[in-house]
């Protein structure tokens, strides 16, 4: 069954027809040709499809497109204009926080979300004092970035990259 929806992706508006079964991830990758968010598991188990969905980091492999009519999506490719890089992307480059690059756009979007969540004072599993302020320690970054699997295992570099971007 088909449905017509509109999406705003990386600042551009689209009107498109999707199957009710189509996920936002497949809508982007297979309908709109935006392959910045990746499909690693298709079940919310790896984080490669992380984008900012209406401002919050989300896994769009688990989001039905039809249920997000009118949504605003920012992928890693939409974080900075062509030829420029977002501070998180620049930090990933400098820290060599990736190898194969497949999980990277999801890591980058997740990191942008993490920095925003920390700025809003959201606690995490490793926050010692739930009633206090949140400090961006390495343990906080690692815990918060744990929804993004990296099989090349660049974690040791991802954490400082997020710290570097967060310090700006």
């Amino acid at each position, binding site marked *: 069954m088909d*449905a017509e929806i509109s999406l705003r992706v990386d600042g551009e508006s689209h009107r498109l027809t999707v199957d*009710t079964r189509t996920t936002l991830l497949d809508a982007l990758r297979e309908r709109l040709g935006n392959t910045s968010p990746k499909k690693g598991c298709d079940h919310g188990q790896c984080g490669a499809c992380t984008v900012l969905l209406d401002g919050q980091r989300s*896994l769009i492999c*688990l989001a*039905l497109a039809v249920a997000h009519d009118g949504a605003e999506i920012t992928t890693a490719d939409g974080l900075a204009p062509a030829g420029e890089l977002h501070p998180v992307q620049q930090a990933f480059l400098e820290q060599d926080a990736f190898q194969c690059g497949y999980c990277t756009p999801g890591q980058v979007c997740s990191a942008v979300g993490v920095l925003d969540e920390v700025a809003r004072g959201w606690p*995490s*599993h490793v926050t010692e004092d739930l009633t206090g302020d949140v400090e961006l320690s390495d343990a906080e970054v690692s815990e918060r970035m*744990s*929804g993004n699997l990296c099989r090349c295992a660049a974690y040791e570099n991802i954490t400082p990259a997020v710290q570097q971007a967060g310090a700006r």
Partner: protein
Amino acid sequence: MKPFAYAHPGDVAEAVRDVAAEPNAVFLAGGTNLVDHLKLGIATPDLVVDVRTLTSREVTDLPDGGLRLGAASTNSEVAADRRVRERYPVLAQALLAGATGQLRNMATTGGNPLQRTRCVYFGDVTTPCNKREPGSGCSAVGGYTRYLAVLGVPAALPDPTAPETCIATHPSDMAVALAALDAQVQVLGPAGTRTIPFGELHRLVGDDPSTDTTLEHGELITSIDLPPLPAGTRSSYRKVRDRASYAYALVSVAAVVSGDDVRIALGGVAHKPWRATRAEELLRGRPLTDHAVRAAMDAELAGAQPQPGVGGGNGFKIPLAARTVVATLRELTSEATR
């Protein structure tokens, strides 16, 4: 994935009517469990009714001093709420121990407790499963039982061919905390509203593994209420898992200590969040020494049934549950005396 119709009604009443009218209809909220199951062919609805934007997304104060969590509030928002963090740390900790930042931004208060078991055989439509396909048998018995139940199951190796056999666990961390907090579930259904004590929301397997909860078809959770806690109450959630993050519980413990009263709920060990009522009774009014807690947990776990299976079985959960409760209560009481 089977095709389905999608509806996004104007309000909750209409949503309830839509689902009630169609026997094979389901509600959709955050989608983190349902969409997963649609893809795997575990959920095969004809109609999906989207309620994500219909119920309240607010956390509000109740007149009795408790808190009301709107069904559409996300796990992230509830965990970040100052009132939850200060008054119900066990809930904030349970939420933050669950899933990942991205998933918590999507998953909702109403949806999280209704997520279904992560038993690998339930998740694989090529294997028999009484929960997924009533009467087909239970593949989990003697199989991969590491994340499966030891409490509320009839034997160490129940009959895998019997239609009532199921050794699934409930995977939600949030639900374990809500069980310990004696939360109240506000429900709207075709027959109107009702309140379900959280402990009665989930079922043990009984003779029907396919049904996880006591909700009727068409009933929608509209909010979950947290009752007020006595002054000086301390609570915490301890999750033991195979990875440091992003893993289901092997065993988890929600503990709430108010004066002489101690409430203990266990996750990862049963078909529902398991209130350790026997241990609670034994500990009421007694000093929570390691020795006393250990003895109380031994009594609680006396009926536990280790499930052997490939990869070593799950008998370790029995000592692990006891040890984790001891450690959790030790930390709670040492905090109090600090």
